[in-house]
Each structure stands twice: as C-alpha cells, then as structure tokens.
C-alpha cells in the first residue's frame, strides 16, 4: 500500500462508477463512456468546490461597502505598490472579508490530477496495469477506449499513431486557448481598475500568451490523452464559471461591474424621468450604492 493508494481508489472508483452507469447507454467498450467518465470526474470535483467559490464571491460582494476606503488607499499610496497592497490586506483583515481565493482550490485538485495521471499511465502500460478499483478487464477496456479515434491511454510521444498526435495537439491547443481567454476575461473585464499595476499585469499576460502554449506543449506531449481531456474540461469549467460570475456578479469597480450598473440603470430608469433611455444612462450610479454604504460606514467609525 502506497500513500497515494486511497487517491487511486477514489479516482478510479469514480471513473468505474460512471462507466458502469453509462455503459447501458453508450456501450461498455465505447470511447464515449470512458471519455465521459473522465469528464465526470472533473464535474464532481468542481461541483464539490462550488461552495468555496460562492464563499469567495460573497466576500467580493462585501467589498462594495469598502470600495470608498479602497479608493482612498489606492490614491494615498499611488506610487508605492508594496504599501498599497499592505494597506489593502489590512483593510480586508479588519473587516474580516477577503476577495482572494487562496491556493487551496488549486492544491485540492493537484493530487487528483496526479492520481488520474498515474491511473491512466498504468492503463497505458503493456499489459495495462489495473490500479485502484480497476479490474484487469476494465483496464484493458479503458486502454482501448478511444476519444476522437485516439486511445485515451496513449501519449503524443509514446505513440506513432498519427490520429493520437493530431488529437493531442488539438487538446493542447484547447488548453492553451481556454487558459488564455480565462485570464484575459478576468484582466480586461473582471478586475477593478488599478492604474499602473494592471498595465504591468497585462504586460505579463502578453508574455504568457506565448509562453503557455509552449509550457503546455512541452508537458502535454508526455500526458495520456485522458489526462489532456481532464485538463481541458477543467479549463472549460473555470472559464464558464468565471464568465457567469463576471456577467452576473462582477467584482465592484471592474469594467464588467460598471457595465452591469449601466444595464440595470437602463432597465429601471428613475420613475420621474419617464422611460427615456438616455436619461438613465446619464446617471448610472445613482440607483445603486446608497443601499449598503451608510451601514458599513458606521461600523468603520467605531
């Protein structure tokens, strides 16, 4: 028994369970069944992480009340980035709210990712190694299951199969693209504007635009197709989740937030002004903001 055995059991257990459930629908040996069992693993993990995500969004919302103070800090320490972050962190702490997510969501997924990698790699061996809840027959079956014609246990480097190589390149491109668009979406729309510091980040983003495909390409050629499916699915989920939040519940002060305020203002124009759209656009902030602010300010004055 190795330390990681429990993880192998969990990962393979989920896969085998989904496989057994879907077998009557798509067929036992079908690649669709095995592909979906990998994707199901992603869906399960990400669903379990949703409460954390909601918690984070809630604390971001609580920031609306703090935004005047945040602006003050940003003004005061315009030229001193270190002092600025320091003061912001202090502010978060005194108000017991923190919009940042911490590394936990990543760290929680890393062992699962590693376990899946090992399980799929074992399946890719000849003869297939059955880890966790896999029986030798199931391992054999999974090894032969295909995603778009490429066996899910094969890697770009380990296979001379052209289809596998095309599929891995496609998945690596998908991973790079989703990572990049997710980041870009956040940078351009989802983050409060912070003058120069944001520019620096955008600069870094541009470098990463070229760097990420390279990193993914270098690592991805060693990964079995199944792992690439897992990675791509998780990226798509991240993107979708972020899209939803930026649309529906953006961080205060971000461009998306301003857009939403404008939209809300346009939808519910001031009663006295009639239904003329132009009137509403001219005073976008008025309907919002006065609701929460006074309460929180009192707290601060204590």
């Amino acid at each position, binding site marked *: 028994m190795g330390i990681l055995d429990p993880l192998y059991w969990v990962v393979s257990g989920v896969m085998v369970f989904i496989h057994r459930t879907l077998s009557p629908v798509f067929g036992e040996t079908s690649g669709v069944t095995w592909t979906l069992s990998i994707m199901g693993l992603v869906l399960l993990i990400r669903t379990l992480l949703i409460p*954390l995500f909601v*918690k*984070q969004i809630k604390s971001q919302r609580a920031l609306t009340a703090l935004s005047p103070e945040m602006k003050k800090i940003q003004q005061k320490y315009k030229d001193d980035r270190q002092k600025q*972050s*320091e003061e*912001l*962190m*202090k502010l*978060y*702490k005194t108000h*017991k*709210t*923190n919009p*940042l*997510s*911490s*590394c*936990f969501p*990543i*760290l929680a997924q890393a062992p699962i990712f590693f376990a899946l990698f090992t399980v799929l790699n074992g399946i890719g061996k000849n003869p297939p190694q059955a880890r966790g809840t896999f029986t030798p027959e199931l391992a054999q079956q999974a090894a032969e299951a295909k995603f778009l014609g490429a066996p899910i246990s094969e890697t770009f480097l380990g296979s001379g199969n052209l289809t596998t190589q095309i599929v891995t390149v496609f998945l690596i491109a998908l991973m790079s693209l989703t*990572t990049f668009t997710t*980041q870009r979406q*956040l940078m351009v729309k989802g983050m409060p504007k912070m003058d120069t510091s944001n520019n620096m*980040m955008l600069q*870094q*983003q541009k*470098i*990463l635009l070229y*760097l*990420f495909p390279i*990193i993914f390409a270098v690592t991805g050629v060693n990964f079995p197709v199944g792992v690439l499916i897992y990675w791509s699915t998780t990226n798509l989920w991240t993107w979708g989740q972020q899209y939803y939040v930026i649309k529906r519940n953006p961080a205060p002060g971000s461009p998306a937030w301003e857009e939403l305020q404008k939209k809300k203002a346009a939808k519910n124009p001031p009663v006295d002004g009639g239904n003329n759209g132009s009137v509403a656009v001219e005073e976008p902030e008025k309907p919002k903001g006065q609701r929460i602010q006074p309460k929180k300010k009192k707290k601060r004055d204590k």
Partner: protein
Amino acid sequence: MNYLMWPFLVLIRGWQKFIAPGLAPRCKYYPSCSHYTFDAIKKYNILGLLMGAWRVVRCNPFSHGGVDYVPESLKLGPIKIGAR
C-alpha cells in the same frame, strides 16, 4: 544559507515568473506565500521551508489573510533562532 536550499529557491522563482502570472492574483496575505517562503528559507533554512508550508496551509478559504512578514526571530520553547 545552506546551498541545499537552492533548488527550492529556484523552484519558487520559477513559480513566480512562469506560473503565478498565469493565475489570477489569489494569495490572501501580504507578502504572498511564495514571497514569504523565499524569505523564510533565506533566513531560516530548512525551517523556513516548513514555515512556508505552514503559511500555505494558513492561506485557506477560511482565513482572513492580512499582512504577515517572516518573523525577525523565532522562539521554539526555550530555543531562540535568528535573534540578533
């Protein structure tokens, strides 16, 4: 500083340069966990590595974060480390 710690410092720098910028800013503390661990290792060697690990654990969804520098000196029961 112990040269055995070099690989860790290189890893941390690599993380900061190549991986972290691709993620959204996420650390609840200032300085960030990677920055903290880097400083801690420089100051306390292998103990710093443990301090860094503990910092990452502390930076979880239930913590409120805050400003948290590597302490100037450590007190482990009767033992004092790093005091000048």
